[in-house]
């Protein structure tokens, strides 16, 4: 019988090789597929084109892949937290495509949904629009943006079941949800994997049809990028 369940990151990542294009969920360090990232570092897979909102920090998230020079090209919307990224970029050691965050989210959603392209106003009149088709709709200008074609999509959820259904917690929905299904193969790592039937069908965020492989992450550091608190007075 077919099964989507994998034992760990090493097994779930079978078939990922050098020079592939991979989509990674998460926003900043929130909702990152930590176990898969760690395993890709371990496997020393190189020449990757990574699509993710951010590039991690110097010693966590995709920053770990950057440090090991495993990323050839980074497609992201905001990379301001990573000094190594900025260094590699300014020295021409890394190809980078910076795109508006909403455009990134919609390009992922379009990839999942089989929409080849769409018009958005974001970036009109800026260098983002260079070389792209523009068109006026109802008196406003828009530019044509295209979906991604990625080999793998790697997302992280809170709970998942053996059918691949996913539930995210709090603000970790972020890019994980539109990215689930965006690659040819979607791998989901979850904090807790339960038998099908245990999750309430009314509460599932990502239907299992979008997820080809699922495993329970060994551990989650869930690092916080900026701890901000208030006093109790």
């Amino acid at each position, binding site marked *: 019988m077919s099964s989507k369940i994998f034992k760990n990151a090493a097994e779930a990542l079978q078939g990922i090789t050098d020079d592939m294009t991979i989509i990674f969920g998460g*926003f*900043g*360090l*929130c*909702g990152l597929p930590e176990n898969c990232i760690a395993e890709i570092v371990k496997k020393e897979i190189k020449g990757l084109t990574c699509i993710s*909102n951010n590039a991690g920090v110097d010693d966590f998230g995709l920053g770990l892949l950057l440090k090991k020079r495993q990323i050839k090209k980074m497609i*992201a*919307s*905001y*990379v*301001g*937290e990573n000094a190594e990224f*900025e260094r590699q*970029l*300014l020295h021409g050691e890394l190809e*980078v495509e*910076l*795109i*508006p*965050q*909403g*455009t*990134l*989210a*919609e390009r*992922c*959603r379009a990839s999942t949904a089989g929409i080849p392209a769409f018009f*958005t*106003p*974001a*970036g*009109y*009149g*800026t*260098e*983002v629009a260079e070389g792209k088709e523009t068109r006026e709709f109802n008196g406003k200008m828009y530019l044509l943006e295209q979906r991604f074609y990625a080999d793998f999509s790697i997302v992280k959820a*809170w709970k998942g079941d053996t059918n691949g259904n996913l539930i*995210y*917690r*709090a*603000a*970790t*929905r*972020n*890019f*994980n*949800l*539109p990215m689930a299904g965006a690659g040819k193969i979607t791998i989901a790592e979850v904090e807790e994997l339960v038998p099908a039937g245990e999750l309430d069908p009314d509460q599932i*965020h990502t239907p299992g049809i979008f997820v080809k492989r699922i495993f329970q992450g060994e551990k989650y550091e*869930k*690092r*916080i*990028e*900026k*701890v*901000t*608190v*208030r*006093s*109790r007075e």
Partner: protein
Amino acid sequence: MLDKNGIAKRISKELKDGYYVNLGIGIPTLVANYVPEGIQVTFQSENGLLGMGPFPFEGEEDADVINAGKQTVTMLPGGVYFDSATSFAMIRGEHVDLTVLGAMEVSETGDIANWKIPGKMVKGMGGAMDLVASAKNIIVAMQHVNKAGESKLLPKCTLPLTGIGCVKKIVTELAYLEVTKDGFKLLERAPGVSTEQIKNATLGKLIIDGEIPEMQL
């Protein structure tokens, strides 16, 4: 002259009851501390929160609950989490009433530059391009001049643009201005600041129409 909190306080007077508001990183975030009494404002954070509350109490930080600036925050009762595609549907679909963000330069025609200094600094645009392309109402919170003492209110932006013809209002440490089709219109002076000071710090076309009142905070 206003400090950062003063700028935020002045902007907060533009909040209206029932507004959905997106606050950018930096000074704009401070606006949340000065919501006028008696009105309800809902804060949207583009990473997927609507109804965002204050920072958590020490020891109650949750790695899964952050804002777009990657700071730990809390959710108010009645709030909702959602994914990034839904978040930008709110933004692009013009469901957000007010956007407050920082800028490196603003032009007299309302162009804004805030994401890149070629050859020096590349942080990326994040959600700023989506926000400025679709917001009905954009207020820029920034310093009037940069660290080198050069005006940030220009005839034309010199840095790569984030959006064109989109900025409606600007609040700086010196003044409150409106972007009109004829240029920057001075609406209010910051406490203790003269019209002359504002004129000297503004490189773009500045419209001074009669006596300019001092800001009431």
